[in-house]
């Protein structure tokens, strides 16, 4: 089951963080159709956030068609990432892993790698 | 709320209960022997051992001190400690109204105080009843139970004092809101009142007997010298009476000093008591006294007769209990309108 966290300094509203984390998990194939999201009570007990926040997030996800509540049971994921998406991820992930090995061997530390990736990513976004 | 109050008072109440039980046991064990030893004896004081005398004094001390201690340790902290710790808020937010809170605390605490002090007083009063006022053939005597020294430590009155002291402590605690300060003030006020009552209140609780009598050998008790004044004292009907005033009055009924010529009349007056050694008209003392009577002087006795002991006890105890009820109402008013 997915485990949420809250970044109180990110400036992003708590409910939005929950939505983003569900979407993120979905995109990485960690959430599949039929999986149950944690109950409101469980989320609230672990994060110490207002239950309305969780309810709002789950409502938003339902609005996006990603989840559906089953009264008395819980909230369940209604879609899966298409299997071919996971297939597409696999070779890309392997390429990334070997690139990382190369970068390490070249002497880059953790921060340098992150900076390199971020700036390349941003440059790519600006062009696109 | 009763449970909570008892739980907070439990340890002290049980300790006091044990103390009271111990006193009852000692009284029950030694009492009958004591009564046997002194019954029918003309000078019972001489029959007393030093243990007996110590126990007698201890009995008076215990009953004198107990109400004051209860007032300080049970009354003072009752409201003050809760205010200091903020625990009054805890009770009040557990669906207890302020009235129920105070009524239960005061009610249970004074009830336990009354019970403990009542039982102790009963035991000590019963034990001392055979030797109150015991006289000796030589010198020394035990105080009569109507006198201020004993009256407050006999019968019902200690019970009334205990209830009063606790109620007083609760009110003081509510006003000053600090436990140690409340204890000190309660003690001070209680002691002041206990000193004032025998002087101003008790003599008039029941209208005292006032007699104006002539000097006679039968009634003559003695002459004392205070400074340069002579004071004549006469007997009241019963030795055990509580004499409130014993003063010489002139023809107008006003208190008067004994005239100078009386002193010159008396034989060998050089200080200390003189008592008639011979009965008869040739007695020079009797002559002087007769002259005094002819000159219009009388003696006024104001006293509470010995048979009034229990009436006075009831009167004083109920007065204290009524005042305690008023104090309780004052505490409630203070808490409701000034405190919270």
């Amino acid at each position: 089951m997915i485990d949420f966290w809250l970044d109180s300094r990110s400036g992003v509203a708590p409910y939005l963080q929950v939505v983003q984390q569900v979407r993120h998990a979905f995109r990485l194939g960690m959430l599949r159709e039929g999986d149950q999201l944690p109950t409101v009570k469980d989320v609230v007990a672990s994060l110490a956030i207002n239950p309305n926040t969780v309810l709002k997030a789950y409502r938003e996800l339902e609005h996006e068609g990603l989840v559906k509540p089953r009264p008395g049971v819980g909230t369940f994921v209604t879609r899966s990432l298409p299997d071919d998406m996971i297939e597409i991820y696999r070779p890309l992930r392997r390429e990334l892993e070997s690139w990382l090995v190369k970068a390490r061997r070249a002497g880059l530390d953790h921060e340098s790698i992150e900076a390199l990736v971020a700036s390349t990513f941003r440059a790519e976004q600006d062009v696109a | 709320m009763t449970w909570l109050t008892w739980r907070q008072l439990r340890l002290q109440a049980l300790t006091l209960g044990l103390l009271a039980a111990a006193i009852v046991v000692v009284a029950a064990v030694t009492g009958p022997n004591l009564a046997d030893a002194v019954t029918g004896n003309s000078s019972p004081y001489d029959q007393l051992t030093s243990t007996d005398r110590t126990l007698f004094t201890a009995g008076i001390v215990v009953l004198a001190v107990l109400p004051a201690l209860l007032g300080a340790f049970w009354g003072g902290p009752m409201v003050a400690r809760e205010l200091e710790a903020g625990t009054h808020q805890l009770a009040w937010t557990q669906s207890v109204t302020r009235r129920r809170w105070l009524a239960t605390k005061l009610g249970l605490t004074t009830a336990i105080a009354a019970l403990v002090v009542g039982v102790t007083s009963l035991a000590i009063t019963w034990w001392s009843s055979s030797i109150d006022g015991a006289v000796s053939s030589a010198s020394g005597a035990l105080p009569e139970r109507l006198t201020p020294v004993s009256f407050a430590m006999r019968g019902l009155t200690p019970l009334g004092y205990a209830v009063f002291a606790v109620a007083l402590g609760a009110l003081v605690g509510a006003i000053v809101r600090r436990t140690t300060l409340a204890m000190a003030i309660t003690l001070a006020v209680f002691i002041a009142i206990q000193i004032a009552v025998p002087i101003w209140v008790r003599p008039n609780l029941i209208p005292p007997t006032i007699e104006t009598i002539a000097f006679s050998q039968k009634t003559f008790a003695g002459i004392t010298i205070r400074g340069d004044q002579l004071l004549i004292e006469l007997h009241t009907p019963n030795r055990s009476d509580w004499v409130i005033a014993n003063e010489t009055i002139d023809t107008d009924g006003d208190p008067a000093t004994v005239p100078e010529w009386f002193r010159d009349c008396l034989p060998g007056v050089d200080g200390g008591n003189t008592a008639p050694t011979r009965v008869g008209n040739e007695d020079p003392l009797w002559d002087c006294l007769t002259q005094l009577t002819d000159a219009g002087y009388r003696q006024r006795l104001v006293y509470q007769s010995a048979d009034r002991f229990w009436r006075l006890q009831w009167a004083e105890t109920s007065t204290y209990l009524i005042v305690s009820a008023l104090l309780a109402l004052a505490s409630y008013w203070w808490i409701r309108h000034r405190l919270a």
Partner: protein
Amino acid sequence: MTTILEARGLGKRYGRRWALQDCTVDLPAGHVTGLVGPNGAGKTTLLNIAAGVLSPSTGTIEVCGKRPASSAAQLARVGVVAQHTPIFAALTVAEHLEMGARLNLTWDDALAWRRLDALRLDPKQRADRLSGGQRAQLVLTLALAKRPELLILDEPVASLDPLARREFLQGLMEAVADNEMSVVISSHLVSDLERVCDHIIVLVDSKVRVSGDVETLLDTHYRLVGPRRDTTRLPSDQHLVEARSTDRQSTFIVRTEAPIADPVWSVSRIGLEDLVLAYMSQPTEGPRGRPLEVAQ
């Protein structure tokens, strides 16, 4: 939106000093409302009056539809975690629960013991030997087991370490998720309030400066940074909350529903703490003196 607490012109005086003066507040039912303000603003006084522990000197207040402490039944509907979490030092944890069961009209014993078990509190432990966090949890248990309609918490986590604080808020939020309960919690730690509250009231000098739904407030307040500008030149649909200027630069915090069109401004959202601070730093006499009410 129904109100669970309604105060009108509420005041409390000690001698010549007013701890609370002319306070008018509406607390929405079914929400967790945070009460913030500087020390001496009257938060504790207001909460104590609402709890029925203090009588007001002037004004009126109704909690759950009745005057506080007017009856045992009214007291039963309000649960309180008072400042400094007072407990009976000589009583054990179990005895505190027994007290709660005996004194209260409504008492859920099963809930109380379930909480104790989950918190791993030793029932035989004397209350004065508990840690600060355990004390706070005990008092919260006593308040929750009453099944109140309104739960009042006065700075419950102020003196707790971060772990104890987090655990307390977790327990509190779990209870809110379980019950239809309104909560008002006063605190200095705005970051805690941001997680836990969906409604906020800022109280300064006994006056409500702003009261509203947290998300709506955060969505409608912005920080504008730009070249130095006179405050009177702001468009009419932008309400100025706080203004700061150096000789070159102006920083404004404004409230507005409309988008900000002027390109000279660098616009950013502000966090709850900055928003609260902005309202707290306003002068006592505002332009019209009326508080800002923002509905959901």
